[in-house]
């Protein structure tokens, strides 16, 4: 019966996830002080994404849900976020950097 389809996660798994999250937090704080060159940011964001995925899948029950729409909303939201971030950053990265404040003579020309 679909009536009682709600999944009950074992307490041990919750505690295990909690321990993984704590270890990852300490790890990310420590690894930031190690010189990895450009990869410091990559590692930091990688660990953050792993932590977020674990929270979404286990604590937020996405792994166990029977509702497919939940997964659709989640994936659509993350896809939208990646569109925003990746396209904005590639755009800004391919232009002269810094704030371009128009000079008063530019403004006069616009009028």
């Amino acid at each position, binding site marked *: 019966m679909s009536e009682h389809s*709600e999944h009950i996660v074992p307490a041990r798994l919750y505690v295990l996830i909690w321990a993984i999250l704590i270890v990852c937090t300490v790890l990310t704080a420590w690894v930031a002080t190690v010189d990895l060159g450009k990869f410091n940011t990559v590692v930091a964001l990688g660990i953050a994404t792993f932590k977020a995925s674990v929270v979404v899948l286990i604590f937020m029950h996405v792994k166990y849900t029977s509702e497919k729409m939940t997964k659709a909303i989640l994936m659509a939201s993350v896809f939208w976020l990646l569109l925003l971030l990746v396209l904005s*950053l590639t755009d800004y990265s391919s232009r002269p*950097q810094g704030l371009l404040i128009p000079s008063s003579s530019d403004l006069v020309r616009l009028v």
Partner: protein
Amino acid sequence: MSDSPAMTDTVDVVHHDRPELRHHFAAVDQQRNAASLGMWWFLGTEIMFFGGMFCAYLIYRRWYFPEFAAASRTLDLKVGTFNTVVLICSSLTVAMSVRAAQLGKRKQQVWLLFWTLVFGLSFLGIKTYEWGNKYKEHHIPTFDYNVISGEGNIVKGNEALLGITDEIKNNPVKLRQREAEIQQHTKLFYSLYFALTGMHAIHMIVGVGIFLVISWMAHKGRFTPEYHTPLEIAGLYWHFVDIVWIYLFPLLYLIDRRPGA
């Protein structure tokens, strides 16, 4: 309900045996899924809301990386890490309290919710302490903002990172110019820092408010193994706010902590 007949075409079924089941839902499962889905839609809009701020932060961080890195180093790494741990503990207690509701353990549920509130308020308290330190260091972008001299001097020790060479040091005009730039660009970092952590804190305050009500409902025995949807979807919100912090912590505190870089 498990032994009731299959759903019929009639819409106006009244579930006298199930007071928590609203008449426009066919089954408890459907009602719970609908409520949970509503919360997920809301969290989708929250991703859009925070996404805009994250995007602004990432662009400025790319533009003014040295200034952002130097400013990031003034944040207290130990306190930030500890606060992340506190928030993760609160997420565990929320998840466990939902589980306690699923199993019908009321007392355990209430205790776990109590600890959620304790962790949530501790996080806010620690955040207030950090903001207070920023005030003392003149790092709040308002009237007394100063990062180039005094208590909150971020140039000292970060000369190489900020590109202050001996040539610039010995040229008062160039040094002034660079210092003015550092003032401006670090102001952007701190503005975004306060906007992002402030918005996150507002979400935490709202979360604490929601969980005060939820705790009261749990205390009154409103949640049963069959019906605990308010607790469950409030939990989704709480975990989401936790995830926002999981990203804020490395982005704000860990820009560049490499020694000697």
